[in-house]
């Protein structure tokens, strides 16, 4: 988080003051907490579940702020976003009971977001948005009782809903606090016994970021 803030401040200082914020391209850097919903995995031998510890996420987005230039469309932004989420496996749940696990699940995603903004008289800008794209879900060396469980990845369709508030710090710089519901469409993996299973991936994310207009 410290590096994201530093990077944002540096970009703000480097940006020429003559380009006042009247719409146009922008860059966002953000990071924060990511919580994965408990996962139900479905295989030919039955179902088994994963639960993950709270983790972290970081991302960057390059976008275009429509501001008031397109009144027919409205006030808002479109952006392409790169994101990385990681959570450690807490435990795996089988018919015979829970067992502590290790390893992590990561999701590297490319999303295309459309965001609607409301700029009232308050200093805060509220926004909501939708995004769609693709994500690579990786089960990185998942283990239970030192036995391998899964080590595989899959690329699937992903979508997200985002909402939050932004505060204009300078004419070109915004502080952004947001929530994201991010879901991937049924990734499929192969377990350590060679059996395929269908999984799930839904996360809730709290992000803090900086957005700088060019």
């Amino acid at each position, binding site marked *: 988080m410290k590096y994201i803030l530093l990077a944002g401040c540096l970009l703000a200082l480097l940006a020429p003051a003559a380009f006042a914020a009247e719409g146009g391209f922008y860059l966002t850097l953000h990071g924060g907490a990511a919580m994965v919903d408990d996962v*139900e995995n479905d295989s030919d031998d*039955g*179902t088994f579940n994963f639960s993950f510890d709270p983790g972290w996420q970081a991302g960057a987005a390059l976008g275009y702020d429509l501001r008031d230039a397109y009144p027919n469309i409205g006030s808002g932004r479109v952006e392409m976003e790169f994101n990385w989420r990681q959570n450690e496996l807490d435990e795996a749940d089988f*018919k*015979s009971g829970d*067992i502590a696990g290790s390893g992590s699940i990561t999701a590297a995603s490319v999303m295309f977001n459309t965001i609607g903004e409301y700029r009232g008289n308050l200093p805060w800008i509220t926004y909501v948005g939708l995004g769609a794209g693709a994500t690579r879900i990786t089960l990185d060396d998942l283990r*239970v*009782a030192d036995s391998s469980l899964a080590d595989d990845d899959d690329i699937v369709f992903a979508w997200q809903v985002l909402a939050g508030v932004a505060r204009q710090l300078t004419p070109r710089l915004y502080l952004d606090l947001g929530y994201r519901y991010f879901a991937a469409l049924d990734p499929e993996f192969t377990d350590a016994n060679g059996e395929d299973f269908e999984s799930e991936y*839904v996360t*809730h994310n709290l992000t803090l970021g900086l957005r700088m207009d060019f």
Partner: protein
Amino acid sequence: MKRLIGAIWILMLLLAGCGDPDDPTRENDFVLLTAITIQSVNPQIAAGTSNQFFAIGNFSGEFTRDITDAATWQVAAGNEGVLQFTDTAGLANGKAAGLADITASLNGISGALTGFVVSDAIIQQLTVTPATASVAKGRRQQFNAQGLFGLPPDSFTQDLTGSVTWEATPSGVATINAAGLAQSVAVGDADINATFANTYGTKSGTAGFAVTPAVFDRVEVSPATVTLPPGETHPFTATAFMSDDTEQTSATFTWSSSDTGVATISATGVATAVAAGSTNITASTGGGSGAAALTVGTLQSIEISAASNTVQIGGELQLIATGKYSGNVSRVITSQVNWNRVPTNAATIDANGLFKGSLTGPVTVTATLNGISGTKEITVTQ
């Protein structure tokens, strides 16, 4: 700002709790099996009897699981004359007196039980339980046999239910199978005999089995399930059975519906569907009751059909409206629907769906009932 952050965290936690997975159904086949323990139903057995062994797997100290069916069972070389496994699920027969070492193996891990005793102790007593039993004709009774082997202080008891020979006399009153389950056949008294014999001795035990006249057993309502559209009637029938499955012809029944808002039932068992929903139709008699499930379907769509899609001016065409109800039930509802057409001056339709063309061109016909409509286009020609 603090409130906003707090609200977002609460929202995240609430959403994170949504959609919890179902209870898992898959065994943990990832953790390594590290040890197997063999357990026995009996600490020792008499020759000529059987014993069930169980294999309990220890998986890396994390959990244990019964792996009896998955394990491979073996009697140590040289002990085959003492004990022999009769199936792959840990059931073994004691062939002759002696000590036997056995192993259960899975995935390269083995567990052992050494010195399992197959005894040459002589059977001293065979007890059949219950000593006396009385059931109504048609019903069954489980008998068990327990043997006492040897003399104190080395005597031991063993369940011999599956190792004895069972006999019921006279067989016209009762029969009994190899597992000791007696079936009553006719009113009367029977003896249930169990006989154990091995190389070292023979013993019998007896129990009394009285079969009394059949008693009321149950009421069956037919049909067991039925789906009707609202307004329709359907007859149910009830039959009372005795314990020997004969019909109790003298039984009279009282009918009831658990939800009369869904369906009512007459004193003679004729149900009338009232409104969409489910109800239980119960027939009660002195001894008990039985029930059937009645579902009243909801009108979901209306289809209009006709012999032709065209009719000449002045000609007539009979339209038929068919209602599709939930529960996959269809009924002709031609005279129940409200008929309409557009344009109104191009044709007439009476309450029974008789269409008469008066102007050339397409006419859209609509049949409506309870807010559900179906349409069909009829072309009026010269």
